[in-house]
């Protein structure tokens, strides 16, 4: 333990930015606290009652200018806090659209299971390279968890039934705590681990160390075979099931006439409960219901695979989101 600091170690650009905002709030809050403490102390001493028989002082009923000042003044300072904090929040929670390293994390009572696109899998360990925008995709198998890395100043609840995401750019090699921050039952306080930030070359070496069963796309392809999806969905264009080629990221027309975007949530739902949204021209109750058959990790692999069937070059541009965010180096 080095010199004591109120700031925990910083592992990313974003951590420094949060600390800067925190320092601003500390200074403002500290000044306010001092002002109140000092005034209370000063008034209490200066105007203390010297004898029980002191006459009652003259009443002062207030001052409109003062009231306006201490209503409007704090409001203006708070606007700065609000603007600054909001900007940083949107930035940290809105990943860049391209060139991110996507890492898939599944929380379950009481461990974090980590999958890399290249196929490595770990439990309670996360390895990331310096200088790349890392995007975490979070899923939960049971209750609400919260993936928290204090050195990043970031956390996000992991809500079952949906995917949550945040991103960061590691800058400082080292090992940092991972915690579960949302109470999740008996082993809540043991549901932690370590995030290791490595230099890019170390990271390459680490990746080369081996990935059991191939990349996530390959693993997804394997599942695609194993569950028999392949018998309909790729080869049988005119048959019973829609082809999955170049589907992802595009609008799909459903049998009740509505159009939905074929995104992760849609693919996930269509695997678990295929009858919920059936593509126009196809029948209900053909595909088996996979609810309870495939775990969250397998679902992520399948989604990555389905996504790989729609090459990025062909996917439509995604505007809007990039406006507010910092582009990764």
């Amino acid at each position, binding site marked *: 333990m080095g010199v004591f600091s109120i700031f925990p170690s910083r592992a990313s650009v974003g951590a420094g930015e949060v600390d800067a905002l925190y320092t601003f709030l500390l200074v403002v809050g500290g000044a306010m606290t001092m002002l109140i403490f000092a005034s209370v102390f000063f008034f209490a001493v200066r105007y203390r009652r010297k004898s029980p028989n002191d006459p009652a002082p003259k009443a002062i009923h207030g001052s409109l200018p003062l009231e306006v000042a201490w209503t409007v003044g704090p409001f203006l300072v708070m606007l700065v806090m609000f603007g600054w904090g909001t900007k940083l929040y949107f930035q940290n929670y809105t*990943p860049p659209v391209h060139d991110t390293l996507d890492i898939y994390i599944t929380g379950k009572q009481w461990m974090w299971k980590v999958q890399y696109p290249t196929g490595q899998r770990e439990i309670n360990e996360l390895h990331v390279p310096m200088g790349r925008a890392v995007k975490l995709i979070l899923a939960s198998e049971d209750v609400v968890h919260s993936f928290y890395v204090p050195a990043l100043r970031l956390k996000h609840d992991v809500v079952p039934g949906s995917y949550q995401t945040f991103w960061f750019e590691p800058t400082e090699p080292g090992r940092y705590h991972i915690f579960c921050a949302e109470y999740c039952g008996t082993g809540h306080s043991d549901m932690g681990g370590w995030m290791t930030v490595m230099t890019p070359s170390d990271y390459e070496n680490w990746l080369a160390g081996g990935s059991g069963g191939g990349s996530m796309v390959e693993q997804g392809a394997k599942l695609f075979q194993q569950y028999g999806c392949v018998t309909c969905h790729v080869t049988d264009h005119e048959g019973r099931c829609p082809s999955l080629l170049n589907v992802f990221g595009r609008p799909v027309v459903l049998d009740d006439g509505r159009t939905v975007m074929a995104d992760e949530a849609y693919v996930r739902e269509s695997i678990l409960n295929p009858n919920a949204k059936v593509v126009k021209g196809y029948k209900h109750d053909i595909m088996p219901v996979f609810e309870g058959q495939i775990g969250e990790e397998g679902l992520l692999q399948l989604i990555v695979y389905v*996504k790989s069937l729609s090459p990025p070059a062909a996917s439509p541009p995604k505007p809007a989101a990039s406006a507010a965010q910092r582009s990764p180096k």
Partner: protein
Amino acid sequence: MTHQAVPVKVYAAVFGALLVLTATTVAVSKLELGEYNFIVAMTIAVIKGTLVVMFFMDVRRASSMTKLFIGAGFFWLAILLVFLLSDYLSRGWLLNIHWL
């Protein structure tokens, strides 16, 4: 106690109006009006509720304090519904769900 008794025919008229409105809302629900089905149904329900509040519950002659509290009740219900929906309706706005 502080007010005159209301003639029975006023109550009977309100009662009749409520029955007619009930029949109307059932009839309209059989028509295909898209989004307007919801709007019409809720409008009729609000009218019926208002009739009951104003005449049967005698709020049209109540003190302004009572009216204020009734208003507050519905205002707070609106707060609950509007702010709840503010989350659910704006969840899909960001494109960050397309994370792959």
